[in-house]
C-alpha cells in the first residue's frame, strides 16, 4: 500500500485534493440533472473519502510534527500563505470529515426532495471548508475556512430545515460568528506581535508559536480564542444554539454539524489554544474554569436532555455533554486526557452522527420526532432497533464501544489533575443512561399501541449500507483503539512538551526578574 502511495506521490497532492476536489464537485453537481444529482454528489464525495483513506498508510505515526506540509505564499504583504499540513490530531478529523460527509450525502437521498442541486453543492462546500479547517497551518487560512463553514451550514439549515429553521439558522450563525470574530482580533494581535518580534507580519502557525507573549497577553488572547471555540463546541453557557440548530436542520445537516462541525472547536483547543498560549492554558484559574464549565456541561445538559420530548433535541443536548468530556480531557493537559478527548471526538462523530441519521430515518417514516408518538417499534423494525440500540450504547459509552475508550481516557487523564471535578464528571456516566435509555425504551420498546407505528418500514438496503460501517466502527474502535492512539500520540506529545517548555521558560523568566533585578545595562537585551 505504502509503495503504491509513494508511486503516485500521494503525500504531495492529497491534502490539496481533499480541499479542492469537493469544491470542484460543485460543477458536476450543478450540471447534473435533478434525478441523478444525488448519485453524482455521493460518488464524488465517496471518491474524496477513498482518497483520504490513503492517509492511514501515508501518515507516518512516528512523527509528532506536521506532515505532508506545503506552503505557497498567498497574500505576501500580510504574511499569509496557503499552507497545509497534517498531524496526528488532524488526521482522524480529516478522515472523519470525508467519511461523514459521504455518509450524510448518502443519507439525504430520501430526505432532500426538492432543490437538490444547491443542497448537494452546499454539502460539498461544507466538506471542503471543514477539511480546510483541519488542514490549515496558517491562521489566516484557518480562519477563512472556519468562517466559510458557516455559510453553507446556514443555508442548509435555513432552506431545508424544519418549521423554526430561520430562527435556528440565524442563531447558529450569529452565535458562532460572534466568537470567531473576536478570535480574529486575537489572531491579528498575535500577528502584530509577530511582526514586532520577527520583523515581518506572518500568519504561519509555526512562526506564531515563536512569538513570546506575556502572561496577561496570553490570558486575553486565550479568552478570545477560547470564546470562539467554546461557542463552536459548545461549552456550557454558549450551547443554546445547538439544540435549535440540530432540531431544525435536515438530517444530513445535523449529522455533519454534530459529527464534524463541533469538532472544529475542540480541534481548535488542541491545535491553537494550548500551543499558542501555553501559560494561559495552564493557568490554574483558566484550567479550573474550563473544567468546571465542562463538568456543568456534562451533568447539566444530560439532565436537560433527559426531559426532552423531541428525540432529536435530546440527542442534540447529549452532544453538549459529550463535548464536555472532550473539554475535560483537553484541560487535563496530559497524554491520557488529550488522547481521550480525541477519541471522544471521533466516537461522538460516529455515534451521534449515526443517532441523527437514525432519527432522520425515523422522521422520514413517521414525520414526527416526538418521543410520545412512538413505541414498540422494535417489533416491526428489528434491524432499525438493533442499529439504534448499538448506536445508543456507543453514545453512552458502554465498554466495548468507542464511546467508552474516549470517556475513560479523558476521565482518567482529568482525574490525575482535578480529582473532585472529575468525580462529578464521572457521574455523567449515570446521566448518560438516564437520558438515553428512557428514549430508547419509549421509542423502540413499550407496547406497539399506535397504528401508524405498525406501518413503519424496516431499514432499506441503502440505509443499512449507511449504518453498517458506522456500527462496525463504533465496535471496532471500542475493542481496538490502539492504531488510532498510536497515530495521535506523538502529536499530542508535541503539544504537551510545548506546555511544559513554556512553563519552564516562564519560570526562568520570572526567576531572572527576581534574581537579577540589579542588571541595568542593556547587555542582556
Amino acid at each position: 500500500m505504502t509503495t503504491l502511495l509513494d508511486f503516485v506521490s500521494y503525500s504531495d497532492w492529497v491534502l490539496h485534493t481533499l480541499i479542492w476536489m469537493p469544491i470542484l464537485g460543485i460543477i458536476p453537481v450543478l450540471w447534473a440533472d435533478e434525478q441523478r444529482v444525488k448519485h453524482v454528489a455521493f460518488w464524488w464525495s465517496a471518491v474524496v473519502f477513498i482518497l483520504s483513506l490513503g492517509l492511514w498508510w501515508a501518515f507516518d505515526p512516528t512523527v509528532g510534527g506536521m506532515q505532508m506540509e506545503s506552503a505557497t505564499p498567498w497574500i505576501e504583504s500580510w504574511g499569509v500563505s496557503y499552507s497545509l499540513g497534517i498531524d496526528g490530531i488532524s488526521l482522524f478529523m480529516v478522515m472523519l470529515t470525508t467519511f461523514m460527509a459521504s455518509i450524510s450525502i448518502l443519507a439525504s437521498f430520501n430526505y432532500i426532495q426538492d432543490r437538490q442541486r444547491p443542497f448537494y453543492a452546499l454539502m460539498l462546500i461544507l466538506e471542503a471548508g471543514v477539511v480546510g479547517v483541519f488542514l490549515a497551518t496558517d491562521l489566516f487560512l484557518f480562519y477563512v475556512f472556519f468562517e466559510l463553514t458557516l455559510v453553507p451550514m446556514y443555508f442548509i439549515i435555513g432552506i431545508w430545515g424544519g418549521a423554526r429553521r430561520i430562527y435556528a439558522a440565524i442563531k447558529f450563525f450569529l452565535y458562532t460568528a460572534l466568537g470567531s470574530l473576536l478570535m480574529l482580533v486575537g489572531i491579528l494581535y498575535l500577528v502584530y506581535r509577530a511582526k514586532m518580534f520577527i520583523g515581518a507580519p506572518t500568519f504561519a502557525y509555526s512562526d506564531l508559536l515563536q512569538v513570546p507573549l506575556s502572561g496577561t497577553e496570553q490570558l486575553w488572547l486565550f479568552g478570545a480564542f477560547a470564546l470562539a471555540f467554546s461557542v463552536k463546541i459548545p461549552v456550557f453557557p454558549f450551547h443554546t444554539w445547538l439544540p435549535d440548530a440540530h432540531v431544525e436542520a435536515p438530517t444530513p445537516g445535523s449529522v455533519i454539524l454534530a459529527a464534524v462541525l463541533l469538532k472544529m472547536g475542540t480541534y481548535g483547543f488542541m491545535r491553537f489554544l494550548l500551543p499558542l498560549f501555553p501559560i494561559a492554558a495552564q493557568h490554574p484559574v483558566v484550567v479550573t474554569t474550563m473544567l468546571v464549565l465542562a463538568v456543568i456541561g456534562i451533568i447539566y445538559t444530560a439532565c436537560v436532555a433527559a426531559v426532552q420530548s423531541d428525540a432529536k433535541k435530546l440527542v442534540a443536548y447529549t452532544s453538549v455533554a459529550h463535548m464536555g468530556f472532550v473539554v475535560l480531557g483537553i484541560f487535563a493537559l496530559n497524554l491520557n486526557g488529550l488522547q481521550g478527548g480525541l477519541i471522544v471526538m471521533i466516537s461522538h462523530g460516529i455515534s451521534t452522527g449515526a443517532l441523527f441519521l437514525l432519527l432522520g430515518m425515523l422522521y422520514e417514516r413517521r414525520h414526527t420526532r416526538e418521543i410520545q408518538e412512538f413505541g414498540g417499534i422494535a417489533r416491526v423494525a428489528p434491524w432499525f432497533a438493533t442499529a439504534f440500540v448499538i448506536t445508543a450504547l456507543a453514545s453512552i459509552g458502554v465498554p466495548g464501544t468507542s464511546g467508552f475508550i474516549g470517556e475513560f481516557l479523558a476521565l482518567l487523564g482529568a482525574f490525575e489533575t482535578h480529582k473532585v471535578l472529575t468525580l462529578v464528571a464521572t457521574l455523567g456516566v449515570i446521566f448518560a443512561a438516564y437520558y438515553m435509555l428512557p428514549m430508547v425504551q419509549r421509542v423502540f420498546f413499550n407496547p406497539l399501541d399506535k397504528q401508524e407505528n405498525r406501518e413503519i418500514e424496516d431499514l432499506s438496503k441503502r440505509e443499512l449500507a449507511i449504518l453498517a460501517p458506522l456500527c462496525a466502527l463504533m465496535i471496532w474502535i471500542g475493542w481496538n483503539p490502539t492504531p488510532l492512539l498510536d497515530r495521535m500520540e506523538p502529536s499530542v506529545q508535541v503539544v504537551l512538551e510545548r506546555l511544559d517548555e513554556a512553563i519552564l521558560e516562564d519560570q526562568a523568566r520570572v526567576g531572572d526578574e527576581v534574581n537579577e533585578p540589579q542588571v541595568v545595562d542593556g547587555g542582556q537585551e
Partner: protein
Amino acid sequence: MIIDFSRQLHYVWALLPEIILCVSGMVILVVGVTGRYREAHLAVEEELESGRSDDLGWLALLGLLGAALANAWLYGVTEVGVNSMIAVDRFRLFSNWIFLLAAVLGILISFAYVYRQRLQAGEFYALILFATAGMMFMVGARDLIVVFLGLEVMSIAVYALTAFNRRDRKSAEAGLKYFLLGAFSTGFLLYGIALVYGATGSTNVAVIGEIISSGEGSRSLLSAAVALLTIGFAFKVSAIPFHMWTPDVYEGAPAPVTAWMSAAVKAAGFVAFLRVFMVGFGDHSIYALWYPILWWLAAITMVGANLIALVQTNIKRMLAYSSIAHAGYLLVAITAANEAAAAGMLFYLLVYTLMNIGAFAIVMSVSHHSEERLYIDDYVGFGWSQPLLGVFLTVFLLSLAGFPGTGGFMGKIYLLLGAAESDLWTLSVILVLTTVVSYWYYLRIAWVMWMKDPETEGQHDRIIVPLPMRFALLVSVGLILYIGILPSGALEFARASIEGLGTFGGGLIGQGP
C-alpha cells in the same frame, strides 16, 4: 514626463482626467439638448434588455474611458516637489480609479432606470461626470480651496441628481434635505478652513503640515479648526451624529444615484479626509488632538448605524444605514492614521464600491427599475425564482458583511491590520462586534429570499436585467470574488498608492481613551 507646475500647461497635464470628464460632460449636455428625442414606447423590454436605449450613457462611458486612459497615463508622470496645489501622486490616482469605477458601474446600471423613469439622460449623465470630476478635484488637491471647490462641484451635482426625478416627491424631498444639510455642514467645513488659514496662513495642506510640525501656528485656532473640519468631513462621510441625511437621501434619491453616490461620494469624502488629516494634521502633537474625537466618532458610528439598520424594513434605507456602518469601519482607518490603515482604507473603498453598487443594482432589478417593491419582505422567494441574481445578491451581502472568500473580508482585515498598527484594540473589538450585529440584517435579506416560502407565486418572474447591468454585475461579482480569494494584486496596488503621501501621525502606542 516630469511635472513641476513651472508652466501653466502642467496643470492641464496634471488634471487631464478631470478635464476629459468635464469636456465629455459638456459634450453630452450638448448632444442631449440637440439630439433626437426618443419616444418611450411600451414594448421596450427588448430595448431595455439590450441597453441600446440610451446612446448618451454610452457616450458618458466613453468619456469615462478617456478619463481612465488619462489616469493610467498619469502613472508615467513624475511629480517634482510635494507642495503644489494639485497632487500627482498614486494616492490620488488610486482614488480616481475608485471614482471612475463607481461612475462606470453607476452609469451601466442606470440605463434602464433613466429610460423607464424618463429622466433627462443628457443632464443625468453629465451631472454624474461633473460630480466625478469634482471628486477627482477634491482628492487630487493639496490646497483646501481646491478641496472645497471640488467638494462643492461634487455636492451640487449630487444635490441635483438626488432631486433629479421630478415625478417623485420623495426624490425632491430627499434633494431638499440633502441640500439644506449639506450646505449647512459646508458652513462648518468652511469655517474650519478659515480657522486653519488663520492659524497657519496657508491653505496648502502640505504647507500646513510643515508649519504645524515646526510648532508654529496658533494652537487655539487649530484645535477649533480641526474640530470644524472634522465636522465637515464627517458630514460628507456620514458619520454619526452627522449622518441624519443619509437614510432619507438614499431612500429618496433615484436608485442608480443612490448606488453610485453611496460609494463614490463617501469615497471622495474619505480620501480627502485622509489626505487633509494625515498630511495636514499628521503631526503627533495635533494627532493627539483629533485622535480621540475620531475614535469616538468611529465607535459611535459603528454601533449606532448597525443598531438602527436592524429595524429597517426598506432595503434602500437598510443599505443606507449599512453604508453609515461602513463609514464607521473606515473611520477606524483614519483614527489609526498609519500607512497600513490608509492603504486599507483605499482598498476597502474599492471593494465597497463594487459590492455596494452591485447590491443596489439587484435592488433596482427587483424594483423594476423604478421606485417600487423596495421592502425587504418583497424579496420573499426571490432567490429561487431568479437563482443567479439571488446568488449575486448573496455574494454582495456576504461581502458587505465581511465574510471570507469575498473582498469585503479582505478589506475588513486590512482595516483591522491598520488598527493593530496603532494599537486600537478596543476599536477593533467594537468593529468586529458590530460586524456581528450587521450579519443579522445582511443575512435577513438572504433568509428572506432563500428561506421563506413565497405567498404569491411568480412575483419575481418579470425581472429584467439589461445587458449593461449584467455586465456591471458580472464585473462586480467577479472582482469581489477575485479580490476575496486572491487579494494580493489589489493589496499591493493600494499599498503602493500610499507611498509618499506624507507624514503619518499614527502609531501612538497605547494612547487609547
